[in-house]
């Protein structure tokens, strides 16, 4: 039962209105963004692959070719299995470089406007017949199920509706780089509609035409030839070419590339699509066989290509016919809209803009007005949409009406397959050249035109000649397979042959592989200057917007002036412009407006930073040796970052190349703020500290004390120059020459600990001196008491004066003892402050030794042992006097302890090679040979518990080493011990 045309028209309009509403609701945020960006949506949108050819033509194709019709979908499934190898790589490139079409991708790889123009023209030639196919499918669908149709009017109405939709929801933004979420959701909605429609017709075939699966199987058993007709073609004819065609069409068809990459929300969605898309196609094709069998059983008055509609007429409900029509409408409209948008984007970037770039100003009457670049691009895109759909309509009018949907579809599939060799070069073959790509593609285009397109699309004289040629080449046995294979083979061979025979010039290779920034710096010195220079091409508003957008993408401040950052900004602007007007024009604009200063050279730090940033951002995975090297680079970088010492690597011009985490913690200066700057630009005190250490002719190791916000710190600095460490002539030799690395070790904690230990040792010494102190103070006190008691009885003035003098003398003696004790006790407290009287200065060794002897004499062990200071009074050393007194105190204490009563301890001093050698000699028991190696170990003592801490000689060793000296031990059991302290002599001594 046929439908009224008006009813179909109403159904079609109602459906398109719903489609408009879905897209509108998404754009207005009425559909939650989480839902709109769900991977299922982009997976369903990929279902735009299933065009009218799939919805209607699959049944007809199956009728003729049996199960070979499945090849059109199994090839897609094969392509989806390669998602990590193919799709993700393409997505990485398109996202990173803002490439919105296949032409952009090829131009990005093979360079030059000719590549883009060639790809776009061929894509148009291959796709316009496909648009005609979709238009024809709609008109023929209507003629199958409705009375009184006027194909041209229906086609025009359909074209008008899809044009309106494409303009409203596919060209909302001037740049293709902005995603059209409403469009994607609408296309996903269309995929659901056509799936529901086809499943419904399939269900009608099984349960309406047959009486369930059992009845259908019985019918098949009664008509085995029907099933054999499906199976035989698979066995008898090769279908590899069909698989290859649909494999390439899965992601190379303009609409597929557009949905999969230009409108993709990201890798997660693509991963979901890798299995969701084949599953969707499987569901969509499940009803095809039952519909075909039902059609064969019913023999409706329709071409098998329209059995989907034809068998519904056998039912009693118009609703199913209407649903089947809407399903076909959704398949055709989605295909036309997305194909047109993709082609419009390509045509704008690679045909229109190179021919007629937008100028900044336009004439208005007698004066000129600044042109709005974005509006110009938007309207140009919309005009191209209209032009392309009109071209499809024109092609529809000219097409031979006897052509099957499959033939038209295969013409397009064979066209996009010609891009396979080029894509392989983009993804896998670094030696592929522009010449090879153009040569191969041109050959492919010529063969495609002669062997495939002309015999189908131009059945006149041209077509007949082409058919004759096909016959001459004996391709007529299986024209599609053989012609496609021949064209692809010649294409691929020329691509490889030309690339190998005429490799890219060394200049091109060098340009592509150069270390970023090695080619100079951007002449414009700030983002504001960028804007000014871009204004002349883009206009003030667009220049402002593009610079702001790039700054925002890079989270860069407006006052950025570092050359490396400006280089990144230039690169980002080029990428963003590429998304706006294609890579060719973007490069031209940036090269022209933001010129490079080739004479200036980017600092090594900047080059490394840019390189590392690119590696981090690279979405195209590295492989093989490059991947291994990158892993090693990361490993070594991590080692540097995690070192507990601060590491600062400097380039030849003392700009900072590496600033690790430990150094950032120590200095409070983050790597991002330090790297790329000169040392002198670092905040105080680090700039001066590192600057003087790096450039001055200082020792390669130095201990420095500095005052920071966190207090005083003691740092050990080490330096190593990098000359000669790189392989001569190697790529890094010139960059590393003159560089150096500085290591900073924070000794503050260990110094504090050492000071604390020394203080404890002094306190222990004072404890030992306590008895002696009481004795030494007690004697003069007794003397004072006696003199004072007799003083009232002495009347003679001279005697009184003498007694008073005696009292003062004894008081001085006490004062001297107390002062030396206090001085010793307070010497070098364990807080590191500027007040600490331990600064290095020259002092006389004899005085220091004398002071130490006075202190040690206070101890009980010193009694009965004679001490002699034979040092030269003129001999001076450089150092911390108080610390070295502690050294002598400890050595003398040990000497007195070891000496028997009545023996003598001597201290002598000599000079040798600019050093002072102070010998502390005792005639004691000597040190056993087995203990000599351990006497400087902390807490090692041979004294009984409570007599010694075991820290004395350890401290002696530590303090003397700190002064750049050394401690030597000579000892013989039963003879005595000589400890020699070697210290640097004072310059004036």
């Amino acid at each position: 039962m046929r439908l009224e045309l008006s009813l179909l028209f109403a159904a079609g309009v109602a459906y398109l209105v719903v489609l408009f509403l879905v897209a509108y609701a998404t754009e207005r945020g009425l559909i939650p963004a989480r839902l709109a960006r769900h991977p299922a949506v982009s997976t369903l949108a990929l279902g735009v692959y299933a065009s009218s050819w799939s919805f209607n033509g699959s049944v007809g194709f199956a009728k003729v070719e049996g199960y070979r019709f499945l090849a059109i979908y199994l090839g897609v499934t094969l392509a989806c299995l390669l998602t990590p190898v193919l799709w993700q790589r393409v997505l990485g490139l398109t996202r990173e470089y803002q490439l919105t079409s296949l032409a952009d991708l090829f131009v990005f790889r093979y360079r030059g406007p000719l590549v883009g123009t060639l790809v776009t023209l061929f894509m148009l030639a291959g796709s316009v017949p496909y648009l005609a196919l979709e238009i024809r499918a709609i008109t023929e669908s209507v003629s199958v199920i409705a009375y009184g149709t006027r194909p041209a009017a229906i086609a025009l109405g359909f074209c008008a509706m899809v044009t309106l939709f494409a303009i409203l929801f596919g060209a909302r933004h001037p740049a293709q780089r902005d995603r059209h979420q409403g469009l994607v959701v609408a296309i996903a909605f269309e995929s659901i509609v056509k799936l529901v429609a086809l499943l419904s017709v399939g269900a009608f075939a099984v349960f309406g035409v047959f009486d369930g699966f059992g009845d259908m199987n019985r019918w098949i058993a009664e008509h085995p030839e029907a099933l054999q007709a499906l199976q035989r073609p698979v066995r008898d004819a090769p279908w590899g070419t069909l698989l290859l065609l649909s494999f390439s069409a899965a992601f190379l068809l303009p609409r597929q590339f557009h949905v999969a990459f230009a409108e993709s929300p990201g890798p997660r969605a693509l991963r979901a699509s890798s299995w969701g898309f084949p599953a969707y196609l499987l569901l969509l094709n499940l009803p095809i066989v039952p519909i075909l069998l039902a059609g064969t059983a019913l023999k409706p008055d329709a071409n098998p290509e329209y059995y989907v509609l034809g068998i519904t007429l056998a039912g009693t409900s118009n609703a199913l016919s209407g649903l089947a029509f809407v399903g076909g409408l959704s398949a055709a409209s989605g295909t036309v809209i997305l194909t047109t948008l993709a082609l419009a984007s390509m045509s704008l970037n690679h045909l229109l803009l190179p021919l007629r770039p937008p100028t900044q100003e336009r004439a208005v009457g007698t004066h000129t007005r600044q042109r709005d670049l974005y509006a110009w691009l938007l309207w140009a895109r919309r005009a191209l949409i209209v032009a392309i759909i009109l071209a499809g309509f024109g092609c529809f009018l000219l097409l031979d009406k006897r052509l099957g949907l499959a033939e038209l579809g295969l013409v397009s599939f064979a066209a996009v397959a010609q891009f396979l060799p080029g894509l392989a070069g983009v993804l896998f073959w670094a030696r592929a050249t522009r010449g090879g790509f153009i040569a191969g593609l041109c050959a492919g285009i010529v063969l495609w035109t002669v062997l495939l397109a002309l015999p189908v699309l131009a059945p006149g004289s041209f077509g007949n000649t082409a058919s004759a040629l096909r016959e001459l080449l004996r391709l007529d046995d299986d024209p599609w397979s053989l012609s496609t294979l021949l064209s692809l083979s010649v294409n691929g061979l020329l691509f490889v042959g030309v690339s190998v025979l005429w490799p890219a010039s060394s200049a091109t290779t060098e340009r592509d592989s150069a270390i970023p920034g090695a080619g100079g710096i951007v002449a414009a010195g700030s983002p504001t200057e960028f804007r000014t220079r871009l204004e002349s091409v883009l206009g003030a508003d667009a220049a402002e917007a593009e610079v702001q957008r790039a700054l925002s993408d890079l989270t860069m401040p407006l006052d950025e002036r570092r050359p490396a950052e400006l280089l990144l900004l230039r690169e980002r602007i080029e990428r963003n412009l590429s998304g706006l007007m294609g890579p060719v024009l973007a490069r031209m604009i940036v090269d022209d407006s933001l010129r490079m200063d080739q004479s200036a050279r980017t600092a090594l730090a900047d080059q490394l930073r840019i390189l590392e940033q690119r590696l981090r951002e690279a979405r195209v995975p590295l492989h093989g040796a490059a991947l291994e090297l990158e892993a090693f680079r990361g490993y070594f970088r991590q080692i540097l970052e995690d070192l507990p010492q601060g590491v600062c690597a400097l380039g030849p011009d003392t700009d900072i190349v590496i600033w690790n985490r430990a150094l950032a913690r120590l200095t409070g200066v983050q790597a991002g703020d330090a790297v790329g700057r000169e040392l002198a630009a670092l905040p105080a005190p680090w700039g001066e500290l590192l600057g003087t250490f790096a450039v001055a002719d200082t020792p390669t190791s130095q201990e420095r004390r500095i005052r920071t916000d966190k207090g005083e710190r003691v740092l050990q600095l080490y330096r190593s120059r990098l000359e000669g460490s790189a392989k001569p002539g190697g790529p890094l030799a010139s960059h590393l020459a003159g560089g150096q690395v500085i290591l900073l070790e924070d000794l503050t904690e260990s110094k504090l600990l050492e000071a604390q230990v020394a203080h404890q040792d002094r306190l222990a010494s004072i404890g030992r001196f306590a008895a002696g102190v009481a004795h030494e103070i007690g004697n003069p006190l007794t003397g004072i008491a006696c003199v004072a008691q007799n003083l009232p009885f002495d009347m003679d003035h001279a005697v009184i004066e003498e007694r008073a003098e005696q009292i003062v003398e004894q008081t001085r003696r006490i004062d001297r003892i107390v002062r030396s004790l206090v001085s010793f006790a307070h010497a070098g407290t364990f807080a590191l402050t500027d007040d600490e009287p331990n600064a290095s200065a020259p002092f006389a060794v004899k005085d220091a030794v004398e002071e130490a002897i006075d202190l040690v004499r206070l101890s009980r062990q010193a009694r009965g042992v004679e001490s002699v200071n034979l040092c030269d009074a003129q001999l001076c050393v450089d150092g911390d006097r108080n610390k070295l007194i502690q050294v002598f105190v400890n050595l003398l204490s040990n000497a007195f302890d070891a000496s028997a009563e009545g023996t003598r301890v001597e201290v002598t001093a000599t000079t040798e090679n600019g050093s002072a050698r102070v010998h502390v000699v005792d005639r004691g028991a000597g040190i056993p040979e087995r203990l000599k190696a351990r006497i400087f170990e902390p807490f090692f003592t041979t004294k009984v518990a409570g007599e010694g801490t075991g820290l004395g000689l350890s401290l002696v060793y530590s303090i003397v080493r700190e002064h750049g000296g050394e401690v030597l031990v000579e000892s013989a059991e039963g003879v005595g011990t000589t400890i020699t302290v070697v210290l640097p002599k004072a310059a004036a001594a």
Partner: protein
Amino acid sequence: MATPPPGERARDLSLLSFGVALLVFASPLRLIWAADGRPWYLPFVLWLLVSLLAFWVARAARGHET
């Protein structure tokens, strides 16, 4: 033998699955499932199995999204 990194593993599984699918659909093995008397739905069952392979590869690729 060391386990390959997630990205490599996903690529390996992807190529393996692709090889299996080619064997099923593009090699002379298709003569088996397209032989006379086979049920009409057999190609779809095989297609379903290949789709499950794709699901498996997608799961392996999870966590390695560039």
